[in-house]
C-alpha cells in the first residue's frame, strides 16, 4: 500500500519542534555527511526492481523520489528546496531565478528574474521563453497527463464548458493568445498571472513541470526518453528495463548554480532487477558503491535492520505519505455512517502492524489525512483512534453494537456489510503483501460479522484506474502525500473537488457547506488562520469516517558501505541525491 502514492509532502520549517520529535526515528544515519570530506569522482550506482522511472519528461514528473533525483542531477527549476538534512531542507532557495518569487496583487501575480549564465547541455542559454514553453506543455493534456494540474487550475486562462482549459497546449495552439497573456516575458523577468490568490505558489515552482523546456528540442511523447539537461549531469543512455547512465554536463557551471555539488563522475541506474537479487545485494553489501532505490521485501527488511553490522547503511523515517481506505459514500454503497464506523472499529490494526514488522517499520495508525510532518496544518483529531472504544487489535463487540443500530437506521448498507452473499467490495492492488494483508483484514472483520469481498486489480495500472474503481467498490485503498507544506494540497484534493476524491460525496447540503469552507481556506492569506481552517475540515471528514482508517507510514532506505553523504531530504521524502558521493 505504501507504493500506491503519487504525491509528496514537505515538513514545514516552522514546525521544527514537531518534525524533530517525530520525523526522524530509528536512528537515521546522517553523520557521515557532516564529518567526512566528500570525494569527487568515481561511479555511483543505483538499482531498482522497477523497469523504468515513471517519467523522465519534466511535465509528467510527479513522484517525490524522482523529483529529488532529477532535480539533483538533471533539471533545474526557478526555485528549489535547500539540499540539506532536517527541517531546513524544506526552505526554498533560488535556483534558475535570482529570488524565490515576488508576489503582488494579493498573491495573484508572481514575478521572477532569471540568473545569468544558465545553459542547456547543448550550450545554449536558458531563456524566459523556455520557461514559458515548459509551462505550456502541461496544457497539452492529450499528450501529458501524469503531472500536477496546478498550472491549468491557477493560470488566468478561461475554461471551456466541459471544464477543460481554453488553451490546448503548444501542439494544437488553440487559445495560444490566452496563454501568452497569462505568462509574460520581459527580458529576463517572467511574470505569472493567476486567476486567484495562491499564497504558496512558489512551492509549486520546485516541480520539474514548472521548469524550462527548449521548444526546438521538444519531441512530444518521445521527449521522455532523452530530456535536455540543465543540471550538472546529462543523460548518456536511457533504456527501459536496462539502465540509465548520467555523465557530467560540461556546459553546466558551478558559478551559475548555488546549490548543486556534483561529486561522482558517472551515475548509473540499473532497472528491472529480480526482487530476490536486489535484496541479496543489499543484504550482502555485494555492491558497496551502489544504492537501492526500493525498499526490501518485508522479511528481508527485518533481517537487514536487525543486524547491527548494517547500522551505517540504513535509515528509517516517517515518509511523506498517509495511506487511507476511502469509503464509497454514495447511495447503495457505504452511505451509512454507522456501517463505516463499524468497519473502522472492527479492524485489527495490530495484525497489520505485525505483518509489516511492527511499528518500527510500519508506522502508526493515523487520525487525519494530513500527516504530522506537515506541521501547523496538522492537529490531532478527536474520535476515531482516540475514541474510548477503539482497540488496536479490533473491537468486534463495539462494531456489532454499531451494526445493530445500523440495522434500523440504514438497512441497505447493513445488509451489504453483513450478508455473506454480498459483502463489502474492497479493491486493492494485486501485490503479494496486499494479499497477505487482505487475509488478516477479512479475518478481523468477520469477527464482527462483516463480510469482505477483496478484489485485486493489476498493480501496474491500479493508480491510473482509481477514478474508475471508486464507483465500483465500497472501499478503495490509496495513499497521498502533500505536494508541499500546506494542506491545500491535501484536503481539497482528497475530499474536495480536486483530482482524487474517491469518497464519491456529492449533493448533500452538509457536503456543499464543506466544499464552501474548503474554497475559503484555499484563498486565505493569513497562514495561521488557514491552518486552523484545515484542522477543522480534517476533523469534520474524520468524524464522517469518509476515510475508514488512515496510517502514517514509515519507509526505510539502505545503501552500500562505500557510499557517503547520505541524508534524508524531508520535503521529497527521499535521499538528498545531490550530496551523495562514493568513498575511496
Amino acid at each position, binding site marked *: 500500500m505504501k507504493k500506491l502514492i*503519487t504525491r509528496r509532502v514537505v515538513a514545514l520549517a516552522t514546525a521544527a519542534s514537531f518534525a524533530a520529535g517525530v520525523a526522524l526515528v530509528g536512528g537515521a544515519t546522517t553523520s557521515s555527511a557532516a564529518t567526512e570530506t566528500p570525494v569527487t569522482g568515481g561511479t555511483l*550506482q543505483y*538499482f531498482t526492481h522497477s*523497469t*523504468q522511472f515513471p517519467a523522465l519528461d519534466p511535465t509528467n514528473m510527479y513522484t517525490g523520489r524522482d523529483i529529488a533525483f532529477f532535480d539533483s542531477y538533471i533539471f533545474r527549476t526557478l526555485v528549489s528546496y535547500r539540499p540539506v538534512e532536517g527541517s531546513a531542507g524544506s526552505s526554498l532557495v533560488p535556483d534558475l531565478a535570482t529570488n524565490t518569487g515576488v508576489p503582488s496583487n494579493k498573491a495573484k501575480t508572481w514575478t521572477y528574474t532569471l540568473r545569468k549564465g544558465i545553459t542547456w547541455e547543448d550550450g545554449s542559454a536558458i531563456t524566459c521563453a523556455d520557461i514559458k514553453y515548459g509551462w505550456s506543455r502541461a496544457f*497539452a*493534456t*492529450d*499528450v501529458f*497527463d*501524469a503531472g500536477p*494540474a496546478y498550472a491549468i487550475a491557477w493560470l488566468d486562462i478561461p475554461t471551456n464548458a*466541459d*471544464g*477543460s482549459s481554453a488553451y490546448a497546449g*503548444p*501542439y*494544437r*495552439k488553440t487559445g495560444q493568445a490566452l496563454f501568452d497573456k497569462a505568462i509574460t516575458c520581459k527580458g529576463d523577468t517572467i511574470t505569472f498571472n493567476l486567476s486567484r490568490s495562491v499564497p504558496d505558489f512558489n512551492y509549486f515552482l520546485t516541480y520539474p513541470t514548472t521548469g524550462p523546456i527548449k521548444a526546438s528540442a521538444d519531441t*512530444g*511523447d*518521445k521527449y*521522455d*526518453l532523452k530530456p535536455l539537461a540543465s543540471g550538472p549531469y546529462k543523460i548518456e543512455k536511457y*533504456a*527501459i*528495463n*536496462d*539502465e540509465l547512465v548520467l555523465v557530467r554536463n560540461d556546459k553546466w557551471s558551478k558559478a551559475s548554480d548555488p546549490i548543486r555539488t556534483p561529486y561522482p563522475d558517472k551515475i548509473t541506474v*540499473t532497472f*528491472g*532487477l*529480480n526482487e*530476490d*537479487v536486489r535484496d*541479496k*545485494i543489499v543484504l550482502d553489501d*555485494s*555492491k558497496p558503491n*551502489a544504492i537501492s532505490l526500493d525498499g526490501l521485501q518485508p522479511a528481508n527488511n527485518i533481517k537487514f535492520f536487525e543486524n547491527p553490522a548494517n547500522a551505517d547503511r540504513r535509515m528509517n523515517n516517517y515518509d511523506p505519505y498517509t495511506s487511507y481506505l476511502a469509503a464509497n459514500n454514495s447511495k447503495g454503497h457505504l452511505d451509512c455512517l454507522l456501517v463505516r464506523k463499524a468497519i473502522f472499529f472492527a479492524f485489527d490494526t495490530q495484525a497489520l502492524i505485525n505483518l509489516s514488522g511492527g511499528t518500527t517499520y510500519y508506522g502508526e495508525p493515523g487520525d487525519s489525512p494530513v500527516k504530522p510532518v506537515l506541521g501547523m496544518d496538522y492537529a490531532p483529531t478527536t474520535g476515531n483512534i482516540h475514541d474510548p472504544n477503539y482497540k488496536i487489535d479490533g473491537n468486534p463487540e463495539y462494531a456489532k453494537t454499531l451494526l445493530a443500530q445500523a440495522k434500523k437506521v440504514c438497512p441497505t448498507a447493513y445488509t451489504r456489510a453483513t450478508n455473506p452473499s454480498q459483502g463489502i467490495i474492497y479493491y486493492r492492488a494485486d501485490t503479494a503483501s496486499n494479499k497477505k494483508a487482505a487475509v488478516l483484514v477479512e479475518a478481523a472483520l468477520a469477527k464482527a460479522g462483516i463480510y469482505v469481498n477483496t478484489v485485486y486489480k*493489476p*498493480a*501496474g*495500472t491500479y*493508480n*491510473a*484506474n*482509481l*477514478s*474508475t474503481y471508486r464507483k465500483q467498490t465500497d472501499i478503495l485503498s490509496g495513499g497521498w502525500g502533500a505536494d508541499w507544506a500546506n494542506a491545500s494540497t491535501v484536503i481539497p484534493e482528497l475530499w474536495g473537488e480536486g*483530482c*482524487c476524491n474517491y469518497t464519491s460525496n456529492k449533493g448533500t447540503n452538509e457536503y456543499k457547506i464543506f466544499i464552501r469552507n474548503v474554497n475559503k481556506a484555499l484563498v486565505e492569506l493569513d497562514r495561521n488562520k488557514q491552518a486552523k481552517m484545515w484542522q477543522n475540515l480534517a476533523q469534520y471528514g474524520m468524524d464522517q469516517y469518509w476515510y475508514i482508517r488512515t496510517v502514517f507510514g514509515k519507509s526505510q532506505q539502505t545503501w552500500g558501505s562505500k557510499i557517503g553523504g547520505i541524508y534524508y531530504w524531508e520535503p521529497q521524502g527521499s535521499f538528498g541525491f545531490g550530496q551523495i558521493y562514493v568513498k575511496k
Partner: protein
Amino acid sequence: MLKYVSQRLFYTVLLLLLVSLSVYFIFDLLPVDPARLVCSKNCSPALLRDTRHKLGLDVSVIEQWLRFLQGLFIGRDYGVAAAAIHCPAPAFGYSFSRHECVSTVLSHAFPVTLSLAVLAFILWMTVGVSLGVLAARKKGSIFDRVSTVFVLIGTSLPTFLTGVLVVIFIILKFNLVDPLEIGNWSNPLTDPIGWLQTFIWPAATLAFAYAATYTRFTRSNVIETSSEDFIRTARAKGLSEKVILRKHTLRAALAPLVTLAGLDFAGLLGGAIITEKVFGLDGLGGISIEAVTSSYDLPIIVGTTIVASTFVVVANLIVDITYAFIDPRVRHA
C-alpha cells in the same frame, strides 16, 4: 514439390492475416478500455475522446486492423497535431508507456530473445539428443537410469522454480555474474564473453526442461526405430552397428524431432516469458509480460502476439517443407 510449397505459402499468408485480425477482435471484445488506462487520473470525457483518437481506437475494429496492415507497409502516424509521432514501416503501433514505436521496442527485444532461444536450443538439442541416444543404446544400464531421473526431474520442476533456484543458489551464491549485470544485453559479436555470461544461465534453465523432454523423446524414438523391420534388414545386409545407428536408426528416429524442434524453437522466438521474467531479460517474453502486468500496454501486447504468431506460422511452413525434404513419403503424398 513446387505446387506443395506454393500451396503452403498461400495458406500461411492467409493464416497470418486471420490471426492478426482475430487478435484485434479478441482484444476489442474484452472489457478493457486501453484509452481509459492511458488517460489517467483527471480523465474528462473530452480527454478520453482525445486519448481514443491518439491510440487509434475511435474507429471500428476492422478499420483498426486495416490501418494496422497499412502501417505495416507504409508506416503510420500516432498522436495528434504537432505532437504526432511517425513510426516508419513496419509500424506495429506506438507504445505510450515506453515512448517508442512498437517496432523499435520489438527490434531491441528480439536479439535478446533470439540469443536466449539459440543458446538454449543448442544446449537442449546437444544434451537431449545425445543423452537420449546413449540411453537408448545402453538401455537398462545405470546410465539409462540416471538419464531417466534427469528426465523426470526436468519434466517435473516448473521453470519459474528452477529459474529462481538457479539465481539464488548458483549465480548469487557463487558470485558467478555481477548481480547488477544479470540480464544485461551484450552484443555477441563485440562482447562474446559478456553475452555468454548473460545468457548461459537463463539458457541452461530453459534448456533443462526442454532437454528432459527431448531426451525422453529421442530415447523412445531410437528404441522404437531400432525394432523396425528396416533396421533388421540393414543388419541382415551385414552393416556394422555403427553405420546402422548413424545412417539408418538416427535418420529415421530423429526425423520427427525436426518438426518438434522447429516448432519449439519458433515458440521460443516469441519469447520465453517465465525465464525472461525470472532473469530480467528484456526480450519479447519479458516485455510482453511487463506490458500485461504493469500497464496493459495494448500496442505492445498486440504487437508481440502477432509477431509470436508469425514465428509459429512461418516455422510451421519451414518445418513442413524441411520435413518434405527429409521424408520422401511426405514429398510424394
